[in-house]
Each structure stands twice: as C-alpha cells, then as structure tokens.
C-alpha cells in the first residue's frame, strides 16, 4: 500500500538522512585526498605500533571475552543451578560499568601501593618490587582484561539465546552416535551457535576498537588515542581523519565478518518443535565450578566495583557532593535530552515515511541514518568536525569579504555540535525502536483508517503515533542513556570548559582522584542499568511466550 505524502515529507526525509550521513561522507572524502606531512611522519614512526596494539586489543578482548562468556552462557541455558533466575540477569550488569571506572578501581587495588600487593608483601616478607614479579595492570594485557570484563555480556546474551534455541534432541542424537558430552559440545552445540557467537565477538571488537578511556588511562597507544592526539595535540584534522578512516575500515571488516557468518543462519537455527526443556543435572564439583564461575564474573565485573564506588561515595561524601556535580548533571541532562528528542523526531519522520511509501527507495533514508551507530565515537567526532569547521571557515571568509566582523566558530565550538554528534551516533537506536513498533501495527489498520475518511497525515496522527508511543518512549530513553554515557566523541567535540558527567568522571580518573567523583560515576552506572533492565524484561517476556507455545 502506498500513500500520498506531501512533498516536504519526502524532501525532509532525504535531507535529514543526507545531513546525518555527512560525517561518513566527509571521512571517506578526507581519506582519499593525499596524506599530509604529519600523517606520513606518523605512518613511518608510531602508527604501525598503534595498529598492532589495536588489533591485539580486539583479538585479546574477543578471546578472553569468549572464554568468560561462553561457559557462563551454556550454564545459564542448559542447567538449573541454584540462583539461576538472579544470575542470568546479574551476568549482564557489567555492561553498565564504564570501563574507565573499572580500570581505575582495579589499578587502585592491584598497583604496587594497592591493598593486594601490600597484603602479599605482608604475608611473604618481600619488601620491594625487585623481590617478586607482579604483572603490571597498566598495560595492553591489563586493558584487555578490563575491557573483556565489561564487554563479555554482549557475547553472553547472544550465545545464551542461541543455546536456548538449540534443540535438545540434536545433542541426544550426537550422544547416541558416540560423542562424549564434551565432544558433543564442541561438535554440535558450539558450531550451531556460531553465527550468534561471531555477532557477539564483532560487537565486542567494535567496542574495543572504539575504546578511548581505558587505553588512554593505561597509556597504551592505539588508533583511538592516535586520533585524539593528532587532533587535540597537533590540531591536524586531516591526519586525524586519515586515522579515523583506517578505523572505519576495521569496523567495516568486523561488520562484514558478522554479516558473512549470518548468511546461513536460518540453516543453523532451525527451530524444530518445542519440546519440554530438559536441564543437564550438574552435581558435586561441577556444580560448584559452574556457580563459582558465574559469580566470579558478576563479582569482578559489577559487584566489587559498585561496592568500592559506594565506599568512595560514603567516605568522601562531603567533598564530592557539591554544586559542580549538579552543574555537570544538568549539562549532561540538557545535551542528552536534546539529542534524544531530536533523534526520536527523526526516527518518527523517517519511520513513517518508509511505512507510507512502500517502495525500496523509501527505505534508504532510515538506513543512511542508522550507519552512524557503527562508527566509534572518536571517528564520528572527526567526521562531524570536518564539515562543521569547513562551514565555519566559509562563513567567516564570506563575512570578511563583505567587510563584516567574523563570528568565530559558531558550529564547531558549540553545544549544537555535541547534540548533532549524539544524534548521528544514536539515531539508529530510535529508528530501530520506531521501526519495530510500527512493524507490529497491522497494515490493514492503515487501510481501515483510510477507508474511514483519514488522509495520510490524519492516519499518522490518529493511528500510528498513539500505537507506537511506547516504542517512541523507549527510543527516547535509550538515546538519552547512550548519550549520557558517551565519552570519546564528547571529549573531542565539547566546547571549552563544558563538562558532562562522563567527561568529569574521566577527568577525575585521569587525575587519580575518582574518589571525589564517586556520585557522578554512580549516576552513570545507574543510568546504564536502565536499558539492561528493559532488555532483561523483554527477554523474559519472549522466553515466556516461547514456553507457552
């Protein structure tokens, strides 16, 4: 069904889509122009090391993350160990922890002057660092451990779902054909879950690649820190864009790996008959190992850091609970709130456009808008800066030629830039939310409302908007939360002296004073918990529905 829309709807959709797509275009264009002196210099000296570090980080986080997540996912899907109902969502919580907060806390615990090494020295009688070898946490290895600890839930969630969808009879068949339990895990369970596992690994890889805070705190130079240094240190946008484009290449590689792995997903995840789910009975040491493993992840990834944050909060409450905190909270609230409202407006506009125009062409704007989500924060920031500085320069040049006083950096130095960047990065979330709730509205409702006398705009107002209100609100909330937590793009784009909760917490982490920013850090953690609770509720409903079938 195809409805007539006023011309401005179509024009607006395409305009918005192109506007939100300019950062990607800018990066591609910038990557194609010949390299400048600085980039050549970096390329000859440090860049290869940075690339190697980034690749090692991605691979390390993937490998360690898989080792953490897959056993936990299997236990949650296939056994009924005590406390499973709580554990299966507790295991997701580390995702709410900003990586740099955890990095700081573990550095504090594990460094030479920290409680762990002091205890070690007290027990053994060693006196100085020369007496014993203790791994240095501020290293590539340390960064891998920290990132794996907060990113493993991606893989956990996806592989748990994949394991749950597997039919028990396939495992039984393999056992009857002579596999031991471990063999059938490696020959049946794992290969069948491969598409989901690779998707999870790709997501973790993208997050690890885009991570700035942890590697910066640990002084591990990667492509991300290189982008940051070339722009904020050398002020060289072109070189920063070149490095960003290299990161974009890695992102594209990860996305295509993920797409490739899913090409035959239907084949792997064919849901044959819903039989009663039978659990593997774990007993003795196996049960304790499984329990210990899951609780270890939850403790290290969430409980321990949260407790330490609460401890910081209580001990330093009088100094950290101050007007600064409210100022930054207000800043965060304002920028993220505006981004959320704008993103939802765009999502509604484009979502409705593609529903009402049922041709393939009309689906493009929403897809263009959604590409921003795949960009690492700092890459996006550079992509946003290129067109904005260009337009600032053009405006000022024009003013000078017309003998007017130049206005300075109206775009690239303002809060608008920040909001724009958040919108580019997170609109995909709102678009997805609107699309999925519009998808649940039966097309016959459109036809019914038209035959009952509604023109297309009335139909949107009287039928679509009331019916997708929940999805729209969820989108609003998610964009808001993601924007609140965003750090790398904010660091690059914020106006001078403008701090959000995230940049403030990171600043305190860098200054080795997280104790004094505990309230802000806790707010970030709590805000991050909201989408996880929402996700968990929707997963539970889904599983309930499957059981009812």
């Amino acid at each position, binding site marked *: *069904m*195809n409805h007539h829309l006023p011309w401005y709807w179509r024009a607006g959709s395409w305009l918005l889509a192109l506007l939100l797509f300019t950062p990607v275009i800018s990066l591609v264009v910038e990557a194609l122009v010949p390299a400048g002196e600085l980039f050549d210099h970096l390329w000859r000296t440090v860049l290869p090391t940075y690339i190697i570090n980034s690749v090692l980080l991605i691979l390390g986080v993937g490998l360690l993350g898989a080792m953490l997540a897959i056993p936990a996912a299997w236990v949650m899907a296939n056994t009924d160990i005590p406390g499973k109902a709580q554990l299966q969502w507790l295991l997701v919580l580390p995702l709410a922890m900003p990586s740099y907060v955890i990095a700081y806390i573990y550095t504090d615990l594990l460094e030479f002057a920290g409680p762990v090494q002091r205890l070690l020295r007290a027990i053994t009688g060693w006196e100085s660092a020369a007496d014993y070898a203790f791994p240095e946490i501020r290293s590539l290895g340390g960064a891998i451990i920290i990132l794996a600890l907060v990113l493993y839930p991606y893989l956990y969630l996806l592989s748990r779902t994949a394991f749950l969808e597997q039919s028990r009879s396939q495992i039984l068949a393999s056992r009857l054909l002579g596999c031991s339990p471990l063999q059938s895990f490696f020959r049946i369970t794992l290969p069948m879950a491969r598409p989901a596992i690779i998707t999870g690994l790709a997501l973790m890889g993208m997050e690890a690649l885009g991570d700035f805070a942890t590697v910066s705190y640990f002084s591990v130079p990667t492509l991300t820190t290189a982008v940051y240094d070339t722009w904020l240190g050398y002020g060289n946008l072109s070189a920063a864009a070149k490095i960003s484009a290299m990161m974009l290449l890695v992102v594209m590689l990860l996305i295509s790996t993920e797409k490739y792995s899913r090409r035959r997903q239907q084949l792997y995840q064919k849901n044959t008959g819903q039989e009663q789910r039978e659990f593997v009975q774990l007993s003795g040491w196996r049960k304790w190992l499984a329990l210990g493993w899951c609780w270890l992840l939850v403790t290290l990834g969430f409980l321990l850091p949260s407790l330490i944050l609460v401890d910081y909060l209580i001990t330093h409450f009088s100094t950290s609970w101050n007007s600064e905190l409210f100022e930054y909270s207000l800043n965060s609230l304002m920028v993220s709130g505006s981004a959320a409202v704008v993103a939802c407006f765009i999502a509604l506009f484009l979502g409705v456009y593609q529903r009402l125009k049922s041709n393939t062409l009309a689906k493009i704007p929403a897809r263009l808008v959604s590409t921003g989500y795949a960009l690492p924060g700092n890459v996006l920031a550079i992509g946003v800066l290129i067109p904005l500085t260009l337009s600032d320069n053009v405006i000022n040049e024009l003013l000078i030629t017309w003998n007017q006083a130049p206005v300075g950096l109206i775009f690239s130095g303002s809060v608008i830039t920040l909001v724009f960047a958040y919108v580019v990065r997170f609109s995909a979330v709102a678009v997805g939310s609107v699309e999925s709730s519009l998808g649940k509205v039966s097309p*016959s*409702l459109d036809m*019914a*409302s038209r035959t*009952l006398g509604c023109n297309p705009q009335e139909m949107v107002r*009287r*039928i679509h908007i009331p*019916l997708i209100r929940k999805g729209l609100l969820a989108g609003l909330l998610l964009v808001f939360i993601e924007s609140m937590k965003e750090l790398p793009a904010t660091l690059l784009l914020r106006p001078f002296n403008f701090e959000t909760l995230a940049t403030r917490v990171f600043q305190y982490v860098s200054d080795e004073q997280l104790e004094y920013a505990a309230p802000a850090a806790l707010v970030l953690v709590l805000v991050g918990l909201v989408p996880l609770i929402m996700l968990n509720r929707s997963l539970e409903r889904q599983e309930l529905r499957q059981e009812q079938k």
Partner: protein
Amino acid sequence: MIALKITELVCAYGSTSRQKDNTSQNRDLVLSGLNLSIKDGEIVCLLGSSGCGKSTLLKAIAGLIQPVSGTIALHGKEVSSDAGVTPPEQRGIGMIFQDYALFPHLTVFDNIAFGLGKLTSVQVKKRVQEMLELVNLYGLEKRYPHELSGGQQQRVAIARALANKPSVLLLDEPFSNIDSQVRQHLVREIREILKQQKVAGLFVTHSKEEGFAFADIIAVMGQGRIMQQGTAFDIYHHPHNRFIADFMGTGNTLPATIVDRHTVRTPLGLVQSTQPLPDNKNESLELFVRPPMVKVAAVNNPHRSYQQAHVHKQQFMGKSIRCEISLECDQGSYQLVSEQTNPVMDGASVELSIEPHHLVLFDADGQLVFG
C-alpha cells in the same frame, strides 16, 4: 441503480503510480481488463483460488492501490480513471478486513465513531448507539478490542464500516478467522444486517459454501478477470468453461458425440438430455456430469454387460456416499465419481448410467458448447 461499475480494470504488481507510458505488458498483471457491476443492495461474492487477484480488486476499489488503467465508478461517479484517482478517504466505501483491523488503542465506541468526524458529538453518540444495536453489541462500547471474542470483533468491524453509511461495503475474507461452528450463524446474521441496511456488498472468499450462503450473485475470478457471473445455481450447473466447472466442485468428464436433438453417445452408452441439443453432430465433445447424476446399480449378470465398472473406494459423507469407480470399456479406461445414498460392496462390479438432465457439453478447449 448501479452501485459499483468496473470497466476494463488493469492492475499490476508493484505498480506505485498510474503509468502514463503504458508499460503494463512488461509487468505481472494481477487484473487484466476486469469488468464487474453491482446493483444497489445486491451482495456479490468474488470467488477464486488464492492469488487470483481478489484482494487486489478490493484494494483498487477502495483506492488503496492504483490501477494501471480502466475505470471504477461508484453510483455513476468515476473515482478511478485516466482522468484521476480519488483518495480512499473521499470515496465513501466501507471495508471489512480479514483481521478486522480494529484500532487496538480505541474503545469499541471510539472505533465505531472513528469515521464520524463531521457529526456533532450528540449525533455521533446517537449513531454509535444505533450501530451497536444493529450488530447486537449494546453495552460493550467501553471495551477494548482485545477484550472481545472473534465474533464480537467482527461485529464491531461491521458497525464501524456501516456507521458512515457507505455506498458499497467491501469484505475481504471476513469469516476466515471465525470458528467453523459459529461461522454459519455469523454469515447469516451479517447478511441480514447488510440486507436491512440496503447496502451493496462485495465479498471475497475462497470458500464456496460461504459464498453460496452470503451472496446473491457469485462472480468467479480467474486469469485476472471475471470468468462468469450469476446465481450460485447457474454457475454450478451451467459453468462457462472447464475451469469454472472444476472450481465449483467435483465432476466427471466423458467423451461424447451428439446423436440427435436429445441424445449423446458416451462410453456409458446413450445419455438423454432434457433440453434440445445443438446440431453439431460428429464433433468430439466432452460431457461434464456432476456426481449425483451418475447412477450405480448392482450387476446381476456380469458376463452380459459390455462395461467393466468396479467400485474401488467409498467414503461416507453424511448425507450421501461418495463412490470412486474405475471403468474399463472399448474406448479406454476412466475414473468416475458418483454420489448416492446406498452403500455398495467394495470391489463390486456395477453398472453405470447417467440420469437424463440438462446436459453440459464442452469442446476440446474446455469452452461451453451447450449447457
């Protein structure tokens, strides 16, 4: 007066706009030159196999898709032609959907009142109450659609579509989601409502029984056009071609030649016609016979019979018994179906005959020669 008149309507898959450069030959046509007219107060059933374009036709009438060419007129006023296309909201058409399409966020009252924007609130209230009474849902106006049974939802859909006094009501497989036990009852009830409101109805289904029970006129669709339009009895007994004959129900075909004005020769011997036959002797034709006309009799002396007919399957159908019979004779072997009241022994040799009736004869291309 003619409520709806469709002339030479052409619709294509994926046609998003009326094509000026008529490129329709290159695309898959769903409707290719369809003609149909409905009188005021008449209920017409569009009968056809799935995918034959029934729903497309309804959507074109409602203005929900754009035809490639042809005209659609409602009470003499063209709403779709080369001159332009009226948007659906200005056509004054009611439509009932397979899933009822009730608005889940509105109460029964608000659903029914949805299209009554032009009336004052007092008028709206009065009209909705009338409608609730009409469909027998008085007192349920505050409920939401999900709080109603399937049949009740169906009635709300009817009330909503009729509230605006549409000139034509379109019904797209409206009974397919209703339990078979209540379906018969609901079909009768809704037919009475339409008759009482004197609204012209166009009803789409793939179920013959529903069509027979609901409609005054049946229109059989196939190959993108209306193949035959008439009463159910006419179409069943005098189908215009083999396709329609088979679509309307099981039948037997036997080679036949006309012997004289009242007789044809078939492998079963001579068959009498109650109506005078045309004069094309010696042409090889096909006789189409519905199962009840095939009579089965036990053979007293099998050696004397020139037919070798055996019952190889029997199925009890309630009112009758369906027999599958294989026939061996000089002209070849045939499979026949008969419906009769008394059971026969399985595998028994039987003698077949065809009762004299208004015969139906097709030519070699399956077109009606006589009937």
